[in-house]
């Protein structure tokens, strides 16, 4: 693709011109629409227990079958996507904002503060995610908040490091000095001159992080460290299926498939976004 064409076409069209991007967009759309229209598509209450309908295989009434309590799995999967997407969006947004602030402080602040923050980021990063999750849940108990806190803790260092590096590379740039020499204040330099140049790599990282966040949520719920039982979560469904795998495989499939579809969809989308916005990073 020539420079002029790639500059001229809008980013969405450029994403859709890549086969991987199309697959990603379709998969993500399926999941997002399922979450938005969960109430319309799944007429059965995801938490209603019906002991007579336990372990039913997929049928017209129950497209994904039922679990050990007779709950409709289709409905639980759709409502579970709300949890997954909500965690992904909220936690990523929170990590981004905190990461930007900490990154700016590290980049612009005194050298000792920078060193301290880097030490902090490295310490957090050195914990395996599951160990960190276990430790936090031991302290605060399992909940959706715990999941989000873990995700934010794990993701903030990545964003903060990018912002810090960008800030360090730009704070002595001529265009920043030029802005200062015209009388621009600190906040204007940050808002108008530094952040817009750092936002590209941040968005790429965020789009690549979303599948990771979804996997963390499912993983923690699977281990019983995430959302509390009656609430439908893909990880919890997967765990139900895991305990009943000798009787039926449907439950495990119902819990696992959406995780696979969603993470694949967001990964494809993320990789395409990266290739479109930063062709230098393309791995071929």
């Amino acid at each position, binding site marked *: 693709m020539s420079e002029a064409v790639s500059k001229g076409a809008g980013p969405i069209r450029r994403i859709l011109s890549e086969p991987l991007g199309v697959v990603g967009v379709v998969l993500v759309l399926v999941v997002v629409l399922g979450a938005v229209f969960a109430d319309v598509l799944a007429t059965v209450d995801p938490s209603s227990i019906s002991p007579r309908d336990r372990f039913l295989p997929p049928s017209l009434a129950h497209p994904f079958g039922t679990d050990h309590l007779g709950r409709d799995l289709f409905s639980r999967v759709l409502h579970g996507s709300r949890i997954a997407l909500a965690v992904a969006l909220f936690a990523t947004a929170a990590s981004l904002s905190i990461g930007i602030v900490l990154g700016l402080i590290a980049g612009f602040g005194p050298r000792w503060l920078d060193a301290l923050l880097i030490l902090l980021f490295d310490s957090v990063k050195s914990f395996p995610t599951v160990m960190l999750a276990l430790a936090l849940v031991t302290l605060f108990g399992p909940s959706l908040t715990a999941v989000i806190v873990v995700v934010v803790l794990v993701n903030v260092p990545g964003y903060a490091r990018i912002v810090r590096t960008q800030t360090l590379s730009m704070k002595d740039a001529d*265009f920043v000095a*030029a*802005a200062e020499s015209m*009388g*621009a204040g600190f906040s*204007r330099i940050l808002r*108008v001159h530094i952040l817009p*140049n750092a936002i590209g790599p941040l968005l790429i990282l965020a789009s690549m992080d979303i599948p990771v966040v979804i996997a963390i949520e499912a993983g923690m719920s699977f281990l019983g460290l995430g959302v509390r039982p009656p609430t439908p979560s893909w990880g919890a469904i997967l765990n139900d299926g895991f305990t009943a795998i000798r009787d039926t495989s449907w439950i495990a499939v119902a819990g696992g498939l959406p995780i696979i579809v969603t993470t694949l969809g967001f990964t494809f989308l993320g990789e395409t976004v990266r290739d479109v916005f930063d062709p230098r990073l393309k791995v071929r």
Partner: protein
Amino acid sequence: MKPILEVNAMNVTFKVGPPYRRQDLQAVAGISFDVRAGETFALVGESGSGKTTLARAINGLQRITSGEVIFEGKRIDGLGRSAMRPIRRHMSMMFQDPVGSLSPRMTVGDLVTEPFRIHRVEADLAAETQRLLALVGLPLEFASRYPHQLSGGQARRVGVARSIALNPRLIIADEPTAGLDVSVQGEVLNLLNDLRDRLGLAMIIITHNLHVVFHVADRMSVMYLGRFVESGSTQDIFDAPMHPYTAALLSASPEPRPDRKSARISLPAEVPSLLDRPNGCEFHTRCPWARARCAADAPTIEGTSRRVSCFYPLERGVLRATQEHAK
């Protein structure tokens, strides 16, 4: 007439090296000069002679170690960012790298009108964009372009437009012709000359290019290792340089007129390190005319309108004699 800018005995010292072996690097050493309205003052010197540091120090981007900077009768050295803001409105700066000094995500229109937004000046920004682009000779459709789509000369024009946006009283231009074709250099210099005459502003031009100096400057100073070695009117200095270093610089600059051909004075040895300044006259290690006294005592810059820092300043005769000798 009172000068717009006065610099008195300015020193800028950097601390370099690891904490256990801190060294002082004196980038600007005891510089004094002034600039008046409608006048162009040129600072000449090799790379590393402290020209850019001096410019940044005047604007307050670089803190000075001692001395005074007086702008329109007010001391401005040591002022904080917010105290400098109203002053910076009247003192604009052009940086060496024409493209690099433009924020990459802003359009040309946003760039030239940024001073209005910074200083919250009520204005019709569209009309101002039109006026400023016309003033520097850029077509209006450039307003929606980004810096990476501009050539060096176009980016320089944007820089000029931006620096004159709020009718400053002083413009400091750091290498305004660096990286430009000779024809574009001429256009930019004519533009600066023209603007200076029309707007009556004072201008400081920092350059190592003597043709630029000859073309635009009324007065000039030659810098060596952070010090002025010679100051005076451009005409006088070009006619008869008094400091050996100035003479060497002038002789090294390519001369387009064959009838004016002069012998080149080649300087032996490298420029000394700022961390290891020579004793006595700091130029004696490279001076073809150095005598015993030059290594022992340090000369000070003396004179009123024409100032030179040398015990044995050149006169036409001396220079000629050496040229004969060189042949």
